[in-house]
């Protein structure tokens, strides 16, 4: 059975068309986003790991290494099994800093463009054999299908056609990568297509496995029987496990999952779902298990045919030799799928790395043209270039290497990057000198031992001492891998320990190593606001692009465009750098940011970024256990204690940056903690900024009664501060400030002073009254004598006037005496008074003054209401209040007294319908001698006396004016006095 070239081309075309259609359908939304974003799709897309090597080459590995071949899957499986520990830190880093490739990750961590450049070179060299492997697999399987003899010997005629088909295949794959992989956003279409490919190859592998067991051996029983007949096959499974090569194989394959650029890209960068980190721990190893399950049945089925076809193509050869067209096509498509997925993802990943590490840093983008368009164009050219380079490499190989040999060459190169990647999160001391040295040594050995011999052939170079020799070539891959890796690691560690990190590198290392007990330094940013960032960035990436990127970062951080806090601006800078990294690569992004918006190391030592530490601790607290968790609980307890402190408090760093702003401080200032934390103290809103900044600079630790105006009202504050000692000797880390609100105390003091003043006025009044009373009495007596001793009407008239004036003086004097006596508390003499009777008495007395306006007095006080007090003085209260009401209102209007509430206290109100009391004088009407009446009409002591009497009765007086808010009329005095009945009840309860 054989296929024509036309048949094969048609199969390829149909398959690739389906792939295009699926990607396009996802991009256009025809495949619902729910499906495209499902964790299963993501996990299946990771299946790009299983390239043509795992579909074809792994059978050869099984033949050579027995169960050792499973290391290919187990290494990767183990890495994903421990994904929450092994991969999650990298995923978090990639997400936080928009890291798009492994070269970017290493550039970011080691803060070096050289690292990025060298890693890209290493990766480019490493992936060439892997890409060639895919092309070779497709070309060879096409040849197998089309060759009548099913052999891979190159005929003169078939050579061109096969390679031409491979070339066309590469071109189509390149187009696919161009369309779906070059844009900036998450490539949903690409991921769905990759997931589909994984389904196809998994189905193909299981189908061929099932075909081998049931069609070739007639079921599991038949297979067991065949194995029993061919015991050597079964025994050989275990034999290679005892050799070193199997262990090296495990080491090599362990590194592929994280070090190979395309797998890193899918596993770390494209990971769209946080929770899939957990799902992937079992789902991906299950996928690998299913992929690995058919390996041995296929191997044995292939061996049972005794064909000359190399074992690496047994997946296709078994159905082909059994002449089953359906399974042959299924197998071919699955192999094609495996190769396609790998080529697309590798070329995209490597082109991104080349662009970010080589092209963009070397060439300046035009700031006048749209940056995004320029980047897509560069990436597209690079994708084509990478695939073309891979094709040239493949042509140079001339089919002299098996798939597994090419895979090993590639993976051993990738292994050299593993130490550098591991140290990203696990060893903050590792530095770029160490990485560069180790990598150069490891890659040098790899190039000399494995890459060069591809072209110059295998060599053994005798060293001439101790019988040592250098063995070069793929046959010695295990030794070369071990030497390269161990020397690489040793050099890395030794050089890292012997050399120093730069400040920037240390900062990056601290950002990467979540577990490190480090003190991130609060860097100084020489920038005032986001607009200045736009201005500066515009110089390199164009003003429009800069504006888009700054706005994007502001939106991502939910920040205000007018943000000025240094802490916030540092976060904004980091976010912009992360976004630019996603766009331009970390190398160029870092260079742009370092040049245009540089961070400076603070001059003051020990400026630890407390906010960053807290952020990080909050983020990772679920990972803490044991002592770390207890320490974190302790930290939270102390933080909450400070936050809930019932006194306003804040702490500032040595550089005057606000580090903490507690809840009471928020209430007092009305400024939320989020708004102010990270600000420089001088930038905090008035009056707090200037007040606190000047206090921080003072030599004294306490100031008292600082007057502050808050929301149009005056407040008085006592300020206290203390220095926070640093862990460094004789240094301080900042200051903690407490603000004590003493406004109420100040008000009480003022009130006391006022009362004292009133009391002295009262005493003065009593003295004056006494002194004036005596002569007035004399004048009054003399005037009466004068009146009775003369008949002269003029003199009588004069005497009457004198008497009238002296009565007036006596009345005033009497009022003064009453007012001064009001200060004496006679609570012990109070008895139950009938309130209604007191009111009525007051009304009757007022009504006697016929010369004044007559009012409609309404007494609505119930008969039963009794208050504790002096009835005569209470009558005085009503006389004063009702008299004032009468003087203020028009004749005939209503003045009522009603009881509002009877409880422990009796609350009653005297209400009139007069013009009300103007708001500006309401505060003063209780002051002695304050009156609105005409001179001679009032003494200004009436309401003051009312207030005094009510105070003496332990009551309260409240003024409401106007009563009618609509007409702005009426005045209401609400008086509360102790209820006589309630007091009697309390007394009886106490005595019993």
């Amino acid at each position, binding site marked *: 059975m054989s296929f024509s070239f036309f048949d094969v081309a048609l199969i390829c075309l149909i398959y690739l068309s389906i792939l295009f259609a699926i990607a396009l359908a996802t991009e256009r939304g025809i495949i619902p986003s729910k499906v495209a974003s499902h964790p299963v799709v993501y996990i299946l897309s990771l299946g790009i790991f299983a390239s043509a090597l795992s579909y074809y080459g792994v059978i050869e590995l099984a033949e050579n290494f027995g169960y050792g071949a499973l290391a290919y899957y187990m290494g990767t499986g183990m890495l994903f099994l*421990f994904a929450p*520990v092994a991969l999650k830190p990298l995923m978090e880093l990639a997400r936080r800093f928009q890291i798009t490739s492994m070269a970017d990750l290493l550039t970011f961590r080691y803060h070096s463009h050289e690292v990025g450049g060298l890693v890209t070179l290493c990766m480019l060299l490493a992936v060439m054999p892997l890409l060639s492997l895919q092309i070779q697999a497709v070309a060879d399987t096409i040849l197998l299908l089309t060759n009548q003899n099913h052999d891979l010997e190159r005929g003169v005629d078939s050579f061109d056609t096969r390679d031409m088909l491979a070339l066309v295949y590469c071109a189509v794959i390149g187009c696919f990568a161009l369309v779906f992989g070059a844009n900036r956003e998450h490539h949903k279409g690409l991921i769905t297509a990759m997931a589909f490919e994984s389904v196809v190859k998994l189905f193909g592998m299981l189908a061929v496995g099932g075909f081998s067991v049931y069609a070739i051996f007639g079921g599991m029983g038949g297979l067991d029987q065949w194995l029993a007949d061919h015991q050597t096959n*079964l025994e050989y*499974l275990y034999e290679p496990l005892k050799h070193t090569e199997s262990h090296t194989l495990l080491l090599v394959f362990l590194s592929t999952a994280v070090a190979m650029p395309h797998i890193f890209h899918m596993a770390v960068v494209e990971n769209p779902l946080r929770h899939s980190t*957990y*799902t992937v721990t*079992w789902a991906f190893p299950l996928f690998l*298990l299913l992929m690995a399950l058919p390996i041995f049945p296929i191997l044995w089925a292939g061996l049972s045919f005794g064909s000359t076809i190399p074992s690496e193509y047994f997946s296709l050869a078994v159905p082909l030799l059994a002449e089953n067209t359906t399974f042959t096509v299924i197998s071919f498509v699955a192999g094609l799928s495996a190769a396609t997925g790998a080529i697309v993802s590798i070329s995209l990943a490597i082109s991104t790395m080349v662009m970010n590490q080589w092209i963009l840093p070397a060439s300046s983008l035009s700031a006048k043209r749209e940056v995004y368009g320029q980047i897509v164009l560069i990436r597209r050219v690079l994708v084509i270039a990478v695939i073309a380079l891979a094709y040239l490499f493949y042509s140079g190989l001339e089919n002299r290497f098996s798939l597994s040999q090419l895979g090993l060459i590639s993976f051993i190169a990738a292994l050299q990057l593993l130490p550098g990647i591991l140290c990203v999160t696990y060893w903050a001391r590792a530095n770029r000198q160490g990485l560069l040295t180790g990598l150069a040594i490891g890659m040098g050995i790899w190039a000399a031992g494995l890459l060069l011999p591809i072209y110059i052939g295998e060599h053994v170079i005798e060293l001439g001492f101790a019988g040592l020799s250098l063995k070069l070539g793929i046959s010695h891959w295990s030794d070369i891998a071990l030497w390269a890796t161990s020397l690489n690691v040793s050099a890395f560690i030794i050089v890292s320990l012997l050399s120093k990190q730069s400040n920037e590198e240390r900062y990056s290392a601290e950002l990467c190593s979540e577990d490190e007990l480090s003190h991130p330094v609060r860097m100084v940013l020489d920038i005032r606001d986001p607009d200045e960032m736009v201005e500066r960035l515009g110089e390199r990436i164009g003003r429009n692009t800069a504006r888009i990127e700054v706005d994007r970062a502001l939106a991502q951080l939910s920040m205000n465009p007018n943000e000025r806090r240094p802490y916030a601006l540092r976060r904004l800078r980091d976010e912009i750098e992360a976004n630019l990294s996603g766009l331009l690569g970390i190398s160029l992004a870092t260079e742009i940011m370092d040049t245009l918006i540089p961070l400076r190391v603070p001059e003051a030592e020990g400026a630890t970024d407390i906010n960053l530490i807290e952020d990080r601790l909050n983020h990772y607290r679920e*990972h803490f*256990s044991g002592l770390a968790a207890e320490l974190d609980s302790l930290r939270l307890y102390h933080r909450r204690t400070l936050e809930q402190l019932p006194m306003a408090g804040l702490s500032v760093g040595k550089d005057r940056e606000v580090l903490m702003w507690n809840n009471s401080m928020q209430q007092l200032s009305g400024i939320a903690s989020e708004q102010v934390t990270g600000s420089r103290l001088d930038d905090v809103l008035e009056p707090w900024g200037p007040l606190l900044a000047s206090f921080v600079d003072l030599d004294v630790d306490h100031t008292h009664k600082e007057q502050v105006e808050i929301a149009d009202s005056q407040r008085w504050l006592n300020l206290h501060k203390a220095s926070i000692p640093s862990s460094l000797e004789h240094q301080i880390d900042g200051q903690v400030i407490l603000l004590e609100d003493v406004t109420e105390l100040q008000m009480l003091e003022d009130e006391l002073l006022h009362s004292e003043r009133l009391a002295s006025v009262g005493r003065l009044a009593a003295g004056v009254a006494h002194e004036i009373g005596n002569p007035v009495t004399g004048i009054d007596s003399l005037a009466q004598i004068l009146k009775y001793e003369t008949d002269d009407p003029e003199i009588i008239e004069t005497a009457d006037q004198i008497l009238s004036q002296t009565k007036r003086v006596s009345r005033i004097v009497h009022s003064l005496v009453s007012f001064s006596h009001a200060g004496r508390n006679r609570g012990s003499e109070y008895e139950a008074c009938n309130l209604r009777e007191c009111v009525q008495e007051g009304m009757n007395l007022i009504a006697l003054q016929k010369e004044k306006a007559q009012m409609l007095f309404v007494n609505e006080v119930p008969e039963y209401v009794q208050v504790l007090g002096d009835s005569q003085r209470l009558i005085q209260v009503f006389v004063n209040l009702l008299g004032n009401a009468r003087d203020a209102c028009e004749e005939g209007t209503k003045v009522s007294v009603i009881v509002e509430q009877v409880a422990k206290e009796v609350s009653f109100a005297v209400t009139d319908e007069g013009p009300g009391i103007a708001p500006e004088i309401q505060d003063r009407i209780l002051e002695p001698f304050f009156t609105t009446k005409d001179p001679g009409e009032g003494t200004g002591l009436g309401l003051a006396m009312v207030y005094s009497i009510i105070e003496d009765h332990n009551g309260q007086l409240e003024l409401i004016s106007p009563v009618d808010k609509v007409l702005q009329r009426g005045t209401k005095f609400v008086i509360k006095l102790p209820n006589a009945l309630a007091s009697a009840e309390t007394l009886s309860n106490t005595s019993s």
Partner: protein
Amino acid sequence: MRQSPLLLILLLLFIFSPRLLGWLLSTTGAWYRPYIIWLAIVIIAYFVQRSLVKKHEL
């Protein structure tokens, strides 16, 4: 980080590995024995992740 359980697993593996390898490398057994262990690990991982997700959601 949770290193203690990892160390415990490694210790258990170290203790039981001779017996496990002896069982695995016995040529009298079925050829798919390694896959059974693999499947067992996958099932354990499934239950571990389920409990982790539940804990995370709490």
